[in-house]
């Protein structure tokens, strides 16, 4: 039977699911309810000199009917007195001794201030300390949060101060608002940090009210850039975690953060090296109860894959990430459309013509393949066609509409495999699972990377400057 029990930077964890420092970990009462729901650990909402928060604080982006694809907040660190937070922390640890409580800390950049807060947090029973070098709004204007995380030298200095005092593991929380996240990570490691957590939130403006022209969230008619999180940031977070974990000078035990809300998300962060994961937005959206499926689903997957513990699969995808120059240029896939599954929406067709490489065609019922017929020609032909309402029993054989369950052949697109570059786009837009699959074709060529090609002295001249798909 696989287990979710794990050890992170020396901290024993009943499971790898921690609540990230934020509104769900604002007070002891919340954290105890979260532990009851199944969370293995909680990073207390950042403790530091008491602040005043604004109203309102959050804004979000919905997408096509889905609420909170991305969430933005301009809430600062805890606005409760540190004494209250620490008293409650002691109580939580007393009542839940096996659960992990991490104190997230942020104080002014003075050695004594850090020494003092470390001492107080550890005295309250914290299992570890997370240094908040990431908060991108408000606190950075006071020389804290991301103002520290963005300067590797500051990062290294403060980690050094903390390590002078700390008896528990020190986790440095990294900001993504930086060109190369490895630099502060290296600084933290160099200064003796025990672990890292990434990512904190990303600077953002979620939107503007088109009636009032006021950006969101609205504080008396004005707004301020906030920290972006939620499902939308997961790909950015995965990339940053991978960058750090693939860098020998930076990699440490990693607590993955960023858009995690399901067991699949958690598994992905772990496959890129995370030992625990932290969740905030998904809990803000759906409550603590989501942890049940995170554990249940992850265990089921581990059983299917034959993994006994998290360490069996942690980091297994890291070697599968590499620089572009080391990808095999002679690998080729082409799109294949399963005619039996195709529903005839033709989204792959329009995507390929307008967004890709014009190699999907609507010519199955034409006398001969026609790769020159454009979408405009197809649409024009349809608009000229005269349609009439069918009269039952006169125009139709059956109960109303013929072939409603069978896609007409003329609506099933055809891939011109010779022209297909294997970009994946059609398979991404297709609404039907497993309808468009990318099939490997044998190029008859041995694997060769760009780096190898340059080394061999060919290719550099003819394609010296690569085209960038995104530009």
């Amino acid at each position, binding site marked *: 039977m696989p287990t979710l029990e794990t050890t992170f930077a020396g901290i024993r964890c009943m499971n790898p699911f921690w609540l990230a420092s934020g509104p769900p970990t604002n007070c002891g009462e919340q954290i105890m309810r979260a532990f009851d729901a199944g969370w293995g650990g909680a990073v207390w909402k950042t403790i530091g000199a008491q602040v005043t928060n604004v109203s309102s604080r959050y804004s979000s982006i919905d997408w096509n009917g889905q609420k909170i694809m991305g969430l933005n907040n301009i809430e600062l660190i805890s606005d409760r007195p540190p004494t209250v937070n620490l008293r409650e922390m002691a109580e939580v640890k007393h009542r839940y001794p096996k659960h992990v409580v991490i104190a997230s800390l942020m104080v002014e950049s003075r050695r004594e201030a850090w020494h003092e807060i470390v001492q107080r947090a550890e005295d309250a029973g914290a299992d570890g300390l997370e240094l908040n070098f990431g908060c991108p709004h408000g606190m950075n204007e006071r020389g804290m949060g991301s103002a520290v995380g963005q300067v590797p030298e500051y990062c290294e200095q403060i980690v050094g101060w903390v390590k002078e005092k700390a008896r528990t593991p020190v986790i440095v929380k990294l900001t993504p608002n930086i060109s190369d996240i490895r630099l502060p990570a290296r600084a933290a490691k160099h200064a003796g940090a025990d672990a890292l957590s990434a990512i904190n939130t990303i600077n953002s403006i979620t939107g503007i009210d088109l009636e009032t022209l006021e950006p969101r969230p609205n504080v008396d008619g004005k707004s301020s850039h906030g920290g972006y999180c939620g499902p939308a940031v997961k790909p950015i977070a995965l990339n940053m975690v991978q960058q750090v974990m693939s860098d020998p000078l930076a990699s440490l035990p990693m607590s993955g953060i960023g858009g995690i809300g399901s067991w699949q998300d958690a598994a992905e962060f772990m496959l890129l090296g995370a030992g625990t994961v932290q969740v905030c937005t998904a809990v803000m959206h759906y409550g603590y109860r989501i942890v049940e499926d995170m554990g249940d689903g992850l265990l089921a997957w581990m059983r299917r894959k034959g993994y006994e513990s998290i360490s069996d699969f942690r980091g297994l995808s890291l070697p599968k990430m590499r620089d572009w120059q080391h990808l095999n240029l002679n690998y080729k896939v082409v799109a294949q459309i399963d005619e039996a599954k195709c529903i005839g929406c033709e*989204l792959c067709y329009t995507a390929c013509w307008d967004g890709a490489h014009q190699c999907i065609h609507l010519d199955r019922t034409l006398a001969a393949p026609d790769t020159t017929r454009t979408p405009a020609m197809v649409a024009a032909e*349809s608009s000229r066609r*005269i*349609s009439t309402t069918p009269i*039952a*029993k006169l125009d*139709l054989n059956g109960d109303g509409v013929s072939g*409603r369950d069978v896609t007409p052949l003329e609506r099933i697109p055809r891939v011109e495999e010779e022209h297909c570059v294997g970009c994946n786009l059609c398979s991404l837009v297709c609404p039907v699972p497993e309808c468009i699959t990318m099939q490997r074709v044998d190029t008859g060529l041995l694997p060769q990377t760009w780096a190898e090609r340059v080394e061999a002295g060919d290719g550099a001249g003819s394609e010296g400057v690569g085209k960038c798909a995104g530009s």
Partner: protein
Amino acid sequence: MLVSMSESTNFFSRAQGSVEVAARFAELHPALENTAAVTESQRCLYCFDAPCTAVCPTHVDVPKFIKKIASGNLEGSARSILDANILGASCARACPVQVLCEGACVMHRYNKQPIEIGRLQRFAMDALHASGDPLPFAPGADTGSRVALIGGGPASLACAAELRRRGVKAEIFDARPLPGGLNTYGIAEYKLPLAESLREIDLLAQLGVEFHFETVVDAAKLAELEASYDALFLGMGLGGIHKLGVVGESLQGVTNALDFIAGYKSGTIHAAPARVAVIGAGNTAIDAANAAVRLGASEVHMVYRRGSEQMSAFAFEYEHAREAGVKFLWHVMPVGVAGTTHVHGLELAHMETMEDGSLAPKPGETFMLAVDLIVVAIGQATHTEFLDRMPAQDGDKVRLERGRIVIDRETGQTSNPKYFAGGDCVNGGREVVDAVADGKRAGIGIAAWLAGQRQKSQKPAGGDDANA
């Protein structure tokens, strides 16, 4: 009576429905609430060359208008609909979407639940009507050409709108006191209330379409119109419902489906008696039977000489009638109507299929169905005889086939180049949306033909005319 643009038309305010009838004819497909409409619109896959659009006779760009609902651009959504179908509001309610757009939806092959296109279209059109804005089109620059349109139903209305958008004067002649033809008087009230049809036509009046009501166009009148207009559009629909041809048919309590439906819609019929028989099994027969139930009849029978598998009503209409409690008598034919002054029975004969496939009543076997009202719905006759009586020169006759006007499908032009036609008088009786599509093509066809005529007449004599 001429109602011109300058007068206040406001047909909507002249709808005379009864509150009681309105209560009994609650909408079959109620309006979508805003959140529901947005959620439903987001479900649309946004197909390319969408089958829902292709199958629509007017080719409404369905994904386009639906995505505009999703984006909150309701004004643009309504304009997208109206650009293809000027009667988008009534079609949203009256169309048999199950066999049109929603029947063609790819979702049938995906998660089995088609997008509610009809209700979404209604949502966009309701929003336009609620805004009080006019149609999002302006009349074209005046060309000086004038067209008379015979019949005020959907075909003529759609044709007139296209003409106005192209700067052609459009005058509609109709025998009834209100415009809309069957759109106003013939669609089941639980689908399209009479007032809603009128509301939509008010917008067309604002576009400069003119109306002559209570004007019967016969051969003489048509000749008069031909002399004073540059082109004519024939959109008079079909004629009366066929007679049963049995004894007792003229008794009180025998009516036809069109009169029955028009009667309750316009407020002259408020209730149905207890026992009603509807003869026929088409969509109109179903509408009449359902109406009888809603008007208080306790026992409604539909009488059809063939079996359920041969009925011409859509399957979903048949289901609707069954759910309403209508009973069906298959393979029977009326052979007599019993009664003294008022009908009290319908004599029916069982039918049998002969060796050659034809139907014949079984000899000697008849039975009596006790009824208080008989509604005949066995199809409409054509109404084109007056065209045959036109004093036309050789070759200028409007060609007919089995009473239907023959047209060029793309332009609506008849064998007489000055005459165009569309709707039921051409297709023998289909849906509102088919009439709109016919009228739209004809409106574009007429404007193009008139432009050609004007060009010809501007050329010096002895030019092209020599070829004419």
